[in-house]
């Protein structure tokens, strides 16, 4: 059982990264982005298609990330242009539609579960150390470090810099921000572009562990939302902790024969429990600001 829990913990970093991407988008541009994993997967698949075609991986990585950034920027521009005045629910619904569309296009371009499996670059695949029976590869440490970097970096950006201040203004009161002279649409689109590129990096780190085909990877957004829920779409450190918790729970679920076949349900269970917890505590829910 200890082995399974440790094995589960090794995926904590990648789960945290997925969750952080969602929280990041929500805090900066106030959109629950269902298309996040789909956009990142598009970039990741463009990258592996290029490396398969013989391009060196650093160049392919830049092109893939740029493609994702462009796609994400376009989505952001569309949301700003046509849905700027709408509430969060409408924007979330738009990203759900985009998620379905990107999934369909990806299936068409890159194949299904059996025909579309790709081999992703495993740069950090060498073992770092062994814990019990579990070999912990460097990628686990890299994922955790990247997650910590996002948590601390974005935290500092928001609290210590003038750009951060403007971003906060933008996400909370976009109309007022524009009135006081913050170039809201341009800033928002820049954030979307950055998030697109980061999503690709995250999907590339996640892919060797969680899936090699387009639909599986773009579907990881459900896991990401569950993790983001732990941080109530607001706290980056709690989201990081939520990722580790998710890995822990999965490892634990896999270690017990009675419940292991329900392992896939873990993210949904976490979402349900947290929703219930928050709805019974109205004050907490209404009092928070983003």
């Amino acid at each position, binding site marked *: 059982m200890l*082995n*399974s829990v*440790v*094995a*589960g913990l*090794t*995926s904590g970093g*990648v789960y945290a990264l997925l969750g952080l991407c969602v929280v990041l988008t929500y805090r900066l541009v106030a959109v629950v982005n269902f298309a996040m994993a789909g956009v990142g997967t598009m970039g990741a698949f463009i990258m592996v298609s290029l490396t*398969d075609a013989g391009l060196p991986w650093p160049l392919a990585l830049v092109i893939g990330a740029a493609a994702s950034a462009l796609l994400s920027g376009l989505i952001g521009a569309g949301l700003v242009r046509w849905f700027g005045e709408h509430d969060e629910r409408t924007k979330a619904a738009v990203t759900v539609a985009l998620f379905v569309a990107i999934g369909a296009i990806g299936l068409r371009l890159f*194949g*299904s*579960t*059996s*025909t*579309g*499996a*790709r*081999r*992703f670059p*495993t740069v950090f*695949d060498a*073992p770092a150390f062994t814990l019990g*029976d*579990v*070999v912990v*590869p460097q990628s686990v440490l890299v994922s955790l470090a990247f997650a910590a970097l996002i948590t601390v970096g974005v935290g500092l950006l928001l609290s210590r810099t003038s750009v951060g201040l403007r971003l906060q203004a933008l996400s909370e009161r976009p109309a007022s921000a524009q009135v006081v002279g913050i170039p809201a649409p341009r800033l928002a689109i820049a954030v979307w572009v950055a998030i697109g590129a980061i999503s690709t990096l995250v999907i590339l780190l996640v*892919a*060797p*562990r*969680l*899936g*090699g*085909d387009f639909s*599986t990877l773009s*579907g990881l957004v459900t896991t990401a939302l569950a993790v983001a829920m732990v941080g109530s779409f607001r706290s980056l450190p709690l989201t990081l902790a939520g990722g580790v918790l998710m*890995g822990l729970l*999965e*490892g634990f679920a*896999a*270690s017990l024969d009675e419940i*292991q*076949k329900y*392992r*896939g349900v*873990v993210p949904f269970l976490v979402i349900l429990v947290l929703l219930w917890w928050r709805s019974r505590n109205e004050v907490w829910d209404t009092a928070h600001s983003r």
Partner: protein
Amino acid sequence: MKRSLTSVVAVAALAVASAACSSDAGSADGPIKIGSINGVTGLFQTPEVPQAVKAVFDEVNKNGGINGRQLELVSKDDAMNPQRSTEAALDLLESEKVVALVGSSSAVDCGLNRATYTNAGIISMPAIGVDPACFTSPNIAPVNPGPFKLITAMLYYASETLKRDKVCMYYTVLPGSGGGIDAAIKEWTDLTGKQLTVKDTSVGQGDPTPYLVKAKAAGCQAILYNATVGPWFTQAKTQGMQDVDFIVAANSYTDANAQAIPDGLNVYAGTEWQPYTDETLPGNDRWAKVIDENKIQKTAFSQGGVMAADLFVQVLKTIKGDITRESVTEAFKNMKPIDYPMVGTPWIFGPGEAHSPIQGSRFVKVEAGKWKVLPEGFIVPGKN
């Protein structure tokens, strides 16, 4: 005069039309209609299967057809949707009046329509039998071994050919197929007297590391596996499982998967027909010719399409007299076994309440991102 000629023509046209309407299943003239239900859209996509069947029928038609009659394939897409699958079967039987179903490839057809086929006295020979009902129905006989006979062959290969003592199974299962898997394991146990070290049918999505760690702890030497290939083998390599023989099922036997498996691991795949990646193998030359000439996608499933169509034509040629639904069913129930080089055992429909004529599997192994055909030939449990 002109008017009366028009009316004569009109009456004649009406007569012809009504004759066409009243013609019953398989009249003695006109094309022989054959049906199939295929997943073309939806989650289980096999558009190449009806294309392959049609290609074989076109070839027969070009050479004069059967007793001067043309073969016409009516393929319906069920999109893996139960409602559409049921409707497709009724449409084929009632409206199209097909004489048989040949080359179906649907994940839901057998289970839903088995009773319909039995009641209508029509036979179905799917190119790909997926669910257990395809192999346990009186009027259905697929041309592939199917997932369950394949499990027996994979287990047999692990314990008898690779001579591994601790054989484990990590599978993901569709609802309703658990019984089929247990029966397949029992067949292997009855043949060899051996037991599985681990049987785990809970593999799903998510990080596979916990499963791999458990397999390591249990000392598994050979592991049967049928779920997502990429992450499983990437992490197996990370966990240092280079000395384990992994055997994946036929659904993983694709070019993309061979490339997704990292070097240094021992990964075998059980195939249902002669491995399609080597066109020099017996039977594959014929298949490759049909597929190439018609520019169809080369997959293992298309082998099933060509095989089903070939066997159907062969049996059809033995029918003396009218080709009707009744005469076709009778011919298949009374047929003699046919050796077809693309599979391990002869194919026969025959009488009986259940048909699973094809057994055994031929194995391929990943080497440097490609599937390499292994020399042993077909492994038929109990015979090798």
